[in-house]
């Protein structure tokens, strides 16, 4: 399954190249906007401009890495009835899909590698303050991202149609992951909301640990672990209901 996901990423090279170009444009745009609003200020919300730009550049790179294809694949396979073959395999369905997504991400990362220097040039980067903390929180954040994507995917077992839902999910998750504005700048209610949602672990939290804006790594890891455990329980529950609902279209 992992190999299939990996190959699929390489098969759609053209798509990835375009995504990379868009990523470079996005990071460049963010750099220009933030540089303009900072003007001559040394820092705002406890972030210097350099730290903020590094934070956003990383969060956008992570946004690319945590982009999930699995939702679209599940949707397509439920629609066409080919989900039957996935269910007939001895390995658990969710495990297969998670493996597929991991492979797909690896393939995407492989293609992204040559673009990373360009992205860093268009944006900006500083030396890591806490590289170990960055990697740990990012890996756990990735697990959360896969779990959430699987949860969204399972909706397809009820509605057979999740195009709009997954688009909305992507918008909301990217926004609250802080890929354009670090969470430190979110005002009032929006800030509290971003604080309790799990999306910040996909983008802002690891990036803020990287630049040293957040120093409490263990606190973040504990909350991430709690999210992973909670989501895992929820996934198991939802799956036990979903697979009883399987209707093979045209079967």
């Amino acid at each position, binding site marked *: 399954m992992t190999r299939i996901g990996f190959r699929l990423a390489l098969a759609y090279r053209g798509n990835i*190249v375009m995504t990379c170009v868009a990523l470079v444009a996005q990071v460049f*745009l963010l750099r220009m*906007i933030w540089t303009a*609003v900072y003007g001559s200020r040394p820092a705002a919300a406890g972030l210097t401009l350099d730290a903020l730009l590094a934070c956003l550049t990383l969060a956008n790179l992570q946004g690319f890495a945590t982009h999930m294809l699995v939702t679209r694949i599940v949707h397509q396979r439920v629609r066409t009835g080919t989900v039957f073959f996935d269910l007939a395999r001895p390995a658990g369905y969710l495990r297969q899909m998670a493996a597929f997504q991991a492979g797909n991400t690896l393939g995407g990362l492989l293609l992204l590698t040559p673009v990373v220097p360009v992205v860093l040039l268009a944006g900006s980067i500083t030396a890591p303050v806490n590289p170990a903390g960055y990697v740990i929180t990012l890996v756990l954040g990735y697990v959360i991202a896969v779990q959430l994507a699987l949860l969204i995917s399972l909706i397809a077992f009820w509605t057979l149609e999740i195009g*709009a839902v997954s688009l*909305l999910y992507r*918008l909301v998750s990217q*926004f609250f992951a802080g890929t354009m*504005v670090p969470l430190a700048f979110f005002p009032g209610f929006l800030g509290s909301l971003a604080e309790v949602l799990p999306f910040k672990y996909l983008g802002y939290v690891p990036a803020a640990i990287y630049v040293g804006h957040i120093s409490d790594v263990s606190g973040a890891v504990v909350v991430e672990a709690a999210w992973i455990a909670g989501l895992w329980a929820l996934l198991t529950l939802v799956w036990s209901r979903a697979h009883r609902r399987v209707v093979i279209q045209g079967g």
Partner: protein
Amino acid sequence: MAEVLRALRLYVLLQRASARAALQYRANTVIGILSGAVWQGTGFAFIWVIMHTFPSLAGWGLAEIAFLYGLRLTAHALAMIPLMSVNDIHWLVLNGEFDRFLLRPLNPLVQLMGNRMGIAQFGDLLAGVALLAVAGRSAHVQWNGWLVAFCAAAIVGGALIEAAFFLALCSLSLRLIDTFALRVFVDDVFSKFGSYPMKIFGGAVEWLFTFVLPVAFVAYVPASVVLGKLGDPLAVAAPLLGVPLIVLAYLFWRRNLDHYQSAGH
């Protein structure tokens, strides 16, 4: 002239049929419009969050940026609502379906435009007009008849600029060159860089978006005129740029159409 009127009448008929087809799936249509509006909404939420902390962006306040953003978005929606179905051209050419358009006594481009309706683009229009209405009131502008007319001209002109690039790229599909990814990129550049004051990019990038890919003329220059930020008397002519560009794009389309070879069915 009679020919043009006839084409227009038939286009309206085709679009009405497309609209009826789209409305068969009511929930899908509503969700499509909403997702278009939400998409643009989050784009603007970003600016709103930033301006919450910082009072100005290159000398532009929140209401002024909102006006610029709304102007760009409305022009974009106006360009894409009729042209959305031209996006399918590559696929239609490959399938040999485009040959059918050539056999009917109506301009093939008009038929292509009437083929399907841009649903999500109505969401863009909704968000754009809402932003314009709110920002137009809160930005300190002394509205008068001529300014309103200028705004309308700017929206049409901006739509023509974007439509010209879109149509030129679509034309290449008649020669089996797939430009879909490139169109997505151009659309992305127009929306990303056209919605902010050009001043923040400075130097080479500003020059590029003024003289090479004239993103600046879609909304930035007209908005600067309305908000009294540009002294250059030439800026008033910005809405006119779209006219020669769309004419050139159409000529390019015709040229590629002359070279069209069916996919062979």
